[in-house]
């Protein structure tokens, strides 16, 4: 009850016109950087941090936090419209969002994503406001071994997204893992596979790779079709059909829970809840074959999950003083630059500031959903731009995006190389998503494995002596064994699915 009164006081601060204005500015910038592939929330918050020095601490952090959660709304848009994820979590949204757009239902995909994002985001902020401290302590039990097991589960789910040929999917997934090895090993500092080039010492960048594999490859494939684009269907409105409401809302509910729980784990990223949510939706759907062809739950679940993640990922920051992702690290920096030390003491020393920020996040999410629902229709019309205009636009945005990652021309070349690779993979019917997903998870997998083994003195069975990691790994093993067994008996595999994409 105490927190509730404090939250109301927080609203009092957050609702001053000045703070409202900066909340609006923050979420708008967030939307924009989410839409522009390449420019992510991390870059945007880092760039805008110095501008906030002269502001009141509350106002500054309200704006920077707005960029952070706003970008997750925007990231959906490019995934749905041009099949190019604006940020890692939206890779999954391409699966069903883009097919929906092709069917002229881009508006629906975006509308559902906006509603899901709003629900997921709001629920996780409620969690942040009322039940954060005990949850954060619980999340401390999650160390490298648990992390490793969680990523193994995530990887296993990737197999489920491999499309019609398991072998092709595995090749693609392994390619992703290999690419994740490029650069400096985080445990020993040894440099691997950099071909003697300094610019590869830091490894390949996710944004560069995805823009090549998805965006550029899409353009190349499109060009081959001699631009005879049939008129795209009309944008059919923002809301799902009546019969789609129920499954959509259920998917949103599951995505919220999943995203919230994973956000609590320090060091996790928003890709993990998105993958898990998508796989979950597909697994429990009555007709899983719809997935990859425009299943509305395939957009609703993951998009909700990554927004629920964004709220609960702030819990370790507020309760333990630990920034759990690069963007949150910049928010952490912003607190400190304004003379506040994030952490458990913040609630005691500066309660008015913390509660005002939390209150502003409710307001920000509301602004975002108001902005997004009508705008979804507007954005949706982009899908109707004739390809001869759209392709050059994608090309220009990809090049600018790749360059802005590190301000390095090499990244543009790398993007072109991956564009050609993506084109070849599409021609040869290799699925691209497993490559991107294993690439994102690969580094986490390697680091957490090595750290765990140091903890266990090199004993692999150590994983099974810990309840969480043991359970997760045993489940993964069972699923793997059963699916190999069933596919050997020529039955439908549990994992290797029936879905073409």
């Amino acid at each position, binding site marked *: 009850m105490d927190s509730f009164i404090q939250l109301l006081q927080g609203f009092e601060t957050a609702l001053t016109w000045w703070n409202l204005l900066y909340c609006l500015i923050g979420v708008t910038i967030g939307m924009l950087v989410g839409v522009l592939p390449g420019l992510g929330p991390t870059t945007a918050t*880092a760039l805008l941090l110095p501008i906030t020095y002269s502001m009141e601490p509350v106002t500054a952090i309200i704006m920077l936090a707005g960029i952070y959660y706003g970008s997750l709304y925007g990231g959906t848009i490019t995934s749905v419209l041009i099949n190019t994820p604006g940020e890692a979590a939206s890779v999954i949204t391409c699966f069903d969002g883009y097919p929906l757009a092709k069917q002229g239902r881009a508006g629906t995909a975006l509308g559902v994503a906006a509603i899901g994002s709003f629900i997921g985001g709001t629920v996780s902020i409620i969690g942040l406001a009322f039940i954060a401290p005990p949850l954060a302590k619980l999340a*401390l039990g999650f*160390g490298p071994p648990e992390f490793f097991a969680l990523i193994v589960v995530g990887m296993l789910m990737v197999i489920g997204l491999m499309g019609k040929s398991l072998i092709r999917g595995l090749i693609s997934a392994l390619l992703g893992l290999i690419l994740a090895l490029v650069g400096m090993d985080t445990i020993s500092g040894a440099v691997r596979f950099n071909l003697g080039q300094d610019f590869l010492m830091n490894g390949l960048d996710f944004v560069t790779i995805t823009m090549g594999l998805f965006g550029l490859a899409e353009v190349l494939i499109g060009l081959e079709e001699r631009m005879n684009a049939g008129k795209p269907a009309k944008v059919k409105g923002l809301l799902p059909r009546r019969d789609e409401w129920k499954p959509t809302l259920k998917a949103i509910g599951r995505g919220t829970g999943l995203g919230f729980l994973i956000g609590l784990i320090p*060091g996790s990223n928003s890709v993990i809840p998105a993958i898990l949510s998508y796989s979950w939706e597909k697994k429990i759907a009555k007709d899983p074959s719809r997935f990859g062809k425009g299943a509305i739950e395939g957009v609703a679940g993951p998009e909700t999950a990554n927004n629920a993640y964004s709220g609960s990922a702030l819990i370790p920051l507020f309760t333990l003083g630990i920034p759990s992702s690069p963007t949150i690290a910049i928010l952490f920096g912003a607190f400190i630059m304004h003379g506040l*030390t994030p952490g458990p003491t913040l609630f005691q020393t500066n309660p008015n500031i913390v509660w005002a920020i939390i209150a502003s996040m409710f307001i920000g999410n509301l602004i975002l959903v108001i902005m997004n629902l009508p705008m979804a229709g507007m954005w949706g019309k982009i899908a109707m731009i004739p390809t001869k205009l759209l392709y050059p636009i994608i090309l220009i945005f990809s090049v600018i995006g790749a360059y802005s990652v590190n301000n390095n021309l090499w990244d543009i070349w790398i993007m072109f190389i991956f564009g050609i690779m993506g084109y070849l993979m599409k021609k040869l019917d290799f699925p691209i998503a497993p490559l991107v997903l294993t690439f994102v998870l690969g580094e986490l997998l390697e680091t957490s494995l090595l750290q765990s083994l140091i903890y266990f003195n090199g004993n692999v069975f150590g994983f099974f002596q810990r309840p969480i990691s043991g359970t997760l790994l045993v489940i993964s093993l069972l699923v793997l064994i059963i699916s190999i067994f069933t596919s050997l008996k020529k039955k439908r595999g549990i994992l290797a699915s029936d879905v073409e994409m």
Partner: protein
Amino acid sequence: MKNSLKFVIAGLMIMSLFASGCANQSNSNSTGASQNSEKYPTKPIELIVPFAAGGGTDLVARALAESMKTELGKDVVVINKTGGSGAVGMNEGLHSKADGYKLTMATREIVSLPLLELAPFKTSEFTFVGNVNRDPAVLVVSSKSKFKTFEDLVADIEAKPGKLKFASAAAPSIYGIPFAQAANLDFITVPFQGAAQAVIEVLGERAEFGLYNPGEVTAQIKSGDLRPLAIMAEDRLEGDLKDVPTMKEKGINVGWAGTFRGLAVPDNTPDEVVKILEDTIGKAVKDQKFIDFMAKQNLFIDYLNAGDFEAMVEKDMKAMDPIVQAAKKQEN
């Protein structure tokens, strides 16, 4: 036919856009170089932080950048270039144009990485402009831990050699190795990327202890989640941690271990530019805003001018030698 022609034209236009973009860039660079000898700085300065945003080095850099901006009248923009325990960012800073528009935060890794053969540069390739901060390492345990004093912990490590775990913020640990050497202790070092991740291990009691900079654990010490047991320095600290004993007081013959943070530029940077930067840093560390910020975050100001900083770095290269030998031995 008509369509493909359009496409070719569009392609050519895009290519020419690129070409003109590149040309503009090189033009502006060359004119910039001729001007800056007259009245440096004429444009915003970039400050490379070779570590992630939100970390100790990043905070010092951002506070310093803010105070330098007041002195120089030009923006000082912090850019985080992470990777390779700092090697990537430092290497980029070293190989950027030596015109004073790209500065590098020089931390102790600028000494340790080349010695460990983990960096594609030599420490001597930098010109050291000024040091602003020097922090010792503070040894912390979880407040739920059974170790109430430094002696408790040392006794337990001695009783169970090779069993207790130390969550290191980097690999190899330039704090853990001298501690182990001086006290003749045997413990397991688990490396993490940065203090934020390592601290979770100590809070979650998977690792028994950690050695971090005071600024990195201020929040957790203040909230009572972490208990500081000792610091690795010649003298006790001021401020919040004044009651924490030094390891020397506890009978362990270990000197200062920690990190320093200053500014470096490539060694062919014009002298007048270095001089302007040196003076700017000298003034920036006296800025009350900077002083207040550093004190609040438990970051300790230790200003050294260019000459003294260079001498300190050279001295540290010698001090680091036994640590480097130990680290190499661990690898083999």
